[in-house]
């Protein structure tokens, strides 16, 4: 399942996508949890009883601001969350 967390507003589209099929048997030992400086990721049991990562509810409406510190303008060449997720389950839409 591809789970898209985020929103679209007048300034653009801001979604973090998590491919839960790649996330279930995480080969990176849930590295996303510690890689994100804002601690936006959390492990939950989803509706189909799989343990997967999701973006915390309180973070999904402010991604443009919360993720800004990890984008190229802040000096990063790659996103800490997508780099830590070696199975490639996490993607940013912007």
């Amino acid at each position, binding site marked *: *399942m*591809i*789970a*898209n967390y985020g*929103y*679209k*507003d*007048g300034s653009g*589209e801001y*979604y973090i996508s998590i491919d839960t099929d790649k996330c279930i048997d995480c080969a990176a030992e849930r590295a996303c949890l510690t890689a994100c400086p804002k601690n936006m990721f959390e492990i939950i049991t989803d*509706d*189909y009883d799989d343990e997967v990562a999701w973006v915390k509810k309180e973070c999904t*409406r402010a991604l443009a601001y919360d993720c800004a510190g990890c984008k190229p303008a802040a000096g990063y060449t790659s996103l800490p969350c997508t780099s830590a997720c070696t199975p490639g389950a996490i993607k940013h*839409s912007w």
Partner: protein
Amino acid sequence: MNAEVAAATATPEKKEFWRWQENTWFDETKNWKDAKIITCGIDVGSVSSQAVLVCDGELYGYNSMRTGNNSPDSAKNALQGIMDKIGMKLEDIHYVVGTGYGRVNVPFAHKAITEIACHARGANYMGGSKVRTILDMGGQDCKAIHCDEKGKVTNFLMNDKCAAGTGRGMEVISDLMQIPIAELGPRSFDVDVEPEAVSSICVVFAKSEALGLLKAGYTKNKVIAAYCQAMAERVVSLLERIGVEEGFFITGGIAKNPGVVKRIERLLGIKAVDTKIDSQIAGALGAALFGYTLMQKQGAKAA
């Protein structure tokens, strides 16, 4: 004060144009007492609450009403509305699943499941196994969902940051135009030329823009058409992010508004799957069906 003076000075009753029709239905050809497994789905949404009863995996009855000022009471009232009609008690129900915004506050629920999974399951029942893309236009959010032939979610996207493209947005326009909400859709087609969509995404600014259009000489119908078109464009852009496959199904209250539905179909170039079941109960129906599957699994384990 005589009656004439009293009548002249009385405050006129404020008409609530946004108020949509609450309704209760049950299948009179069946008797719930004959069922082996009775499950219930309660969808406590931000605007409406539904209770759906499923007997042996088949829809038996439902009650759809406006959400009150707290989730537990809304859940109780929704269920009580249908139970009173059919002479059922809470003890007669084997399993209750809560869904929607208030799902964790349904006091008698055995389990809470997200509305995304429940809408997909409900749409699969209502539209059949051919349903692959679901658009849920809820009271205060909008969801685009892909599912497989069993109604299991394969991809989803939700926008709950902004009220554009939601039922609440339509309620605001209904009140502004002073036209009952059920008439907005049909009236949006009663125009000589289809107008451009209102340009504002935000409901607050769309309201201001609609007022400006009225002042500029637009008829009410033309303003409604412009708003329906804007709403359709808004949700289509959401759908395009995850892609649209054949077997397109719309759930939620806005599915009852042909002014929006026909414009979405026109923009996408596909026709939505028809159903005779109230589109607003999809989430609660899915929840009740999840409950039925869980009961069957429990029975299988016990055996």
